[in-house]
């Protein structure tokens, strides 16, 4: 095998790993869109908020410390204890559930039966609110997130593959964090699928997604299901926040990963969980391979725009996405 070919494979594997991370974000969108027809603009900010809360809890940061200091002239920042990662994650998941309850109680409840565009606007408001809340609560400095996930190159992958090419080929470089992310995402998707296919609440969730009236008539509480689905989306956001935060630090730009989820959704379809996964993988591999093969010819930096162009092409030929439901109007 030529080195060039091996490099291409390496690029592809790394693309798949990056794709998994895109999928994680897209998954949060799909869950909420399926269950309530809301395109949740705040999904990215929810990931940021979850990551901020996780770091804050873990490091024993005092919430609203800056605000308290400014108001009372005190100088407090930390409680002085640190929580084990697993406990901090559980607590943050709890915070995301509380957030879901508050969102239902103060926003969704009043917007039942409104146009999708109005609900969409409400989530834009929610996004800005959460962004501000995250800043005020935990401070706006860049934080490192360390929950004990393995980091750095996987020696095992490198050694296993180093013999494949010529002397100049050192084996595949695969980040252990990416492997962890891929495994987590796989576990998450499998459990979500099982939950939605084979459990009472999962079935109720699909029922609500399909027809509100009919769901009510069989005894499903819409409000409970909305809290449930926003909680799940919150926890998915937390997982995405952990992975992206561990990779590139917890900072405002984390919320922009939501923008990366858009082409993934257009590709995979807004209503399909497998679509979110496959879409993410295609975008991940596509942009890495494109950069590797075509990039050098046109000056590089193609990763910034490739995903969007691909999505645009898809919109022209298959507007419902790969796995989305085809909308057929009977006349």
């Amino acid at each position, binding site marked *: 095998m030529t080195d060039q070919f091996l490099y291409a494979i390496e690029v592809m594997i790394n693309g798949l790993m990056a794709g998994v991370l895109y999928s994680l974000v897209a998954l949060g969108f799909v869950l909420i869109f399926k269950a309530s027809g809301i395109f949740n603009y705040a999904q990215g900010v929810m990931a940021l908020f979850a990551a901020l809360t996780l770091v804050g809890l873990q490091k024993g940061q005092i919430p609203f410390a800056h605000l308290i200091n400014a108001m009372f002239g005190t100088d407090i920042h930390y409680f002085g204890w640190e929580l084990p990662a697993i406990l901090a994650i559980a607590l943050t998941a709890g915070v995301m559930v509380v957030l879901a309850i508050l969102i239902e109680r103060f926003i969704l409840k009043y917007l039942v039966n409104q146009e999708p565009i109005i609900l969409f606007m409400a989530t834009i408001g929610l996004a800005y609110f959460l962004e501000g809340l995250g800043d005020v609560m935990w401070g706006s400095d860049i934080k490192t997130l360390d929950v004990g996930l393995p980091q750095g190159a996987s020696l095992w992958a490198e050694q296993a593959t180093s013999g494949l090419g010529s002397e100049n080929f050192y084996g595949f470089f695969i980040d252990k964090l990416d492997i962890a992310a891929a495994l987590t995402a796989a576990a998450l998707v499998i459990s979500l699928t099982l939950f939605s296919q084979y459990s*009472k609440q999962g*079935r109720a969730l699909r029922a609500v997604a399909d027809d509100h009236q009919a769901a009510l008539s069989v005894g*499903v509480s819409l409000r409970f299901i909305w809290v449930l689905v926003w909680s799940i989306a919150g926890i998915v956001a937390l997982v995405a926040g952990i992975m992206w935060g561990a990779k590139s630090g917890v900072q405002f730009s984390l919320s922009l990963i939501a923008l990366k989820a858009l082409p993934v959704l257009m590709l995979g379809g807004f209503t399909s969980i497998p679509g979110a996964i496959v879409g993410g993988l295609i975008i991940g591999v596509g942009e890495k391979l494109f950069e590797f093969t075509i990039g050098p010819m046109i000056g590089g930096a193609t990763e910034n725009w490739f995903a969007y162009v691909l999505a645009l092409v898809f919109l022209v030929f298959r507007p419902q996405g790969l796995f989305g439901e085809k909308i057929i109007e009977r006349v």
Partner: protein
Amino acid sequence: MNVMSNDPYTTADGRRIGGVLMEMKNITLRFGGVVAIKDISFDIREGEIRAIIGPNGAGKSSMLNVMSGFYTPTEGEVWFEGCPRPQMRPYQVARQGIARTFQNIALFQGMSTLDNIMTGRITRMNSNLLNQALWWGKAEAEETVHREAVEKIIDFLEIQHIRKTPVGRLPYGLQKRVELGRALAAEPRILLLDEPMAGMNVEEKEDMCRFILDVNDEFGTTIALIEHDMGVVMDLSDRVVVMDYGKKIGDGTPDEVRSNPEVIDAYLGVSHD
């Protein structure tokens, strides 16, 4: 047959009719200035097939929506099992044991027949969210029990061949049958059917009639149904309420209603000569 007293009795074909199960007391429903239902009272007795008929726009569907909790009456009370029902949301009414179908089918189009009918069991499942999420404890045993109940309904309605088909692909008549199955799956105290025969061809209508009678006969389910096809209703029901322009113009056995001059006027028009 002394239908007007509230004592239990047995019908000519051997079905037992019990005491009053649900009672509508002076129900009035207004939408702004429009009066959809005007001071209507009637009762539904355990085990009977009760029909509500009337021309289009008479307020029949509004009445059914009041009964199933989709509308809250402006005035009046709904009594269920001997107690006045507090203001409830539709899902709470469903949990009380009142199942319904819709005039324009409201099935979960993307789900299979089996899954659609399984949703009908939601009120009957009581393992909690944690058990369900982890598929642990009661959840698995419960799913098996409910699956059996659902299979029985599928056999009963003769829809075995479409168990796995997404209902969106089924013809209209079959969709209606699946919707009936979903309502039945809740093992309701009262089954409310909103125009179960609307838009069907003769054969489908006959099938549906048979299923309604069988449900009542075999499971002893109390049924309240809305129809505007007089013929079907008269053969099917024990007692009939007739509505016109939101008012009750007749109530009694099919024979009584048929000979009621007001009902004849509403259906055939009044001659003004």
